[in-house]
């Protein structure tokens, strides 16, 4: 479903990863691992199309979505309004069982600004349930979630997202409890003199 060959990506004009190749089949999860700064976020942003790759190819069948460290939650809107917005933008309807799946039932009408960090994160993740995309690129989705919420999220990934034929690439430091392939990124770190992206390096 997702095929990556010889990918090289840069952050701020400096190449961080090179020769990254992997594939993710429908219904499976790939977990990215590696120490801080190895380039997990850069790789995910490149896969999601937010920044161009220096070299290599990304072939993705199915529409993709990206979720970053920031949730994109508007504090002045209520939980329902936040989700309804993303549903509208993606021309989807807001499924009612979603609130239960992400334990947001009692928070429906609360302003997102009054939510705790973990609740806000759950709201950010619930967006993924609204937009109905097949390929998910998730950057540390479990930050600030408690153990129970992590299990709830892993269950949603397995029982809903993967069950309908989706796939996901997740950068995380913790064990999600999913049966997933793991890609350790350390061997792919680009050589310091690999060059490339010089035009940006000057700026």
């Amino acid at each position, binding site marked *: 479903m997702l095929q990556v060959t010889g990918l090289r990506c840069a952050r701020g004009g400096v190449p961080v990863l090179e020769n990254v190749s992997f594939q993710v089949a429908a219904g499976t999860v790939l977990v990215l691992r590696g120490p801080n700064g190895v380039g997990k976020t850069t790789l995910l*942003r490149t896969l*999601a*199309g*937010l*920044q*161009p790759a220096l070299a290599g190819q990304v072939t993705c069948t199915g*529409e*993709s*979505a*990206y*979720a*970053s*460290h*920031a*949730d*994109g*939650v*508007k*504090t*002045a*809107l209520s939980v329902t*309004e936040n989700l309804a*917005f*993303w549903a*509208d*933008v*993606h*021309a989807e309807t807001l499924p009612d069982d979603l609130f239960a799946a992400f334990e947001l039932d009692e928070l429906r009408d609360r302003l997102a600004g009054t939510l705790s960090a973990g609740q806000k994160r759950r709201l950010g993740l619930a*967006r993924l349930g609204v*937009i109905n995309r097949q390929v998910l690129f998730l950057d540390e989705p479990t930050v600030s979630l408690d153990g129970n919420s992590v299990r709830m999220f892993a269950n949603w990934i397995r029982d809903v997202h993967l069950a309908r034929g989706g796939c996901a690439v997740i950068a995380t430091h913790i064990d999600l409890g999913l049966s997933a392939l793991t890609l350790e990124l350390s061997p792919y770190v680009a050589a310091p003199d690999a060059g490339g992206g010089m035009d940006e390096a000057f700026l």
Partner: protein
Amino acid sequence: MIALLIRDLRLAVRAGGGFGLGLAFFLIVVVLVPFGVGPEQMVLARIAPGILWVAALLAALLSLDRIFALDFEDGSLALLATAPLPLEGVALAKACAHWITTGLPLTLAAPTLGFLLHLDGAAYAFLLLTLLMGTPALSMIGTFGAALTVGLRRGGLLMSLLVLPLYVPTLIFGAEAVRRGAEGLPTAAPLMLLAVITAGSIAFLPFATAAVLRINLR
């Protein structure tokens, strides 16, 4: 696009959204002018078109840096960039929301404030018309400026420097049409040029804005 427009309008009227800020600023600037230049009716009537236009321009500038900055900070801009809505559409929706919350109220309030400055009776229609035609250009050019400086610390200051020179043609032709209207001179030329600037910026700047956003999101 409609969804984004509605969300932005809703955010603008909620707490901390800044709706009415530009309008209040416009009001205060225009009210301050007679204190500065004295109450002579002749002087005020002469400078009224220029004052109203400059004040409208500054009021529009006031809320520009919020257009993309807030969405950039909370991550929604990156999410919007990966959504099916093209970034050109995002730019247009943002400019439209800015115009509805700033340009439109300014236009509607301007005749009242023109009265405070003893604006010539014949000029009211032209004031309303030029602002209606010119403020969409202010919002669109400002959206482009906001996209250029998104993600920069204190980007609002740099944005003012970038955007104000681009506002000059709109200001010149807008104020000129009102002045000519007040003096009973033909106004077709400045009105047409004003319309050209607005139409041109709405046609081209969404693409430029989207390109700039893509670079800034890297």
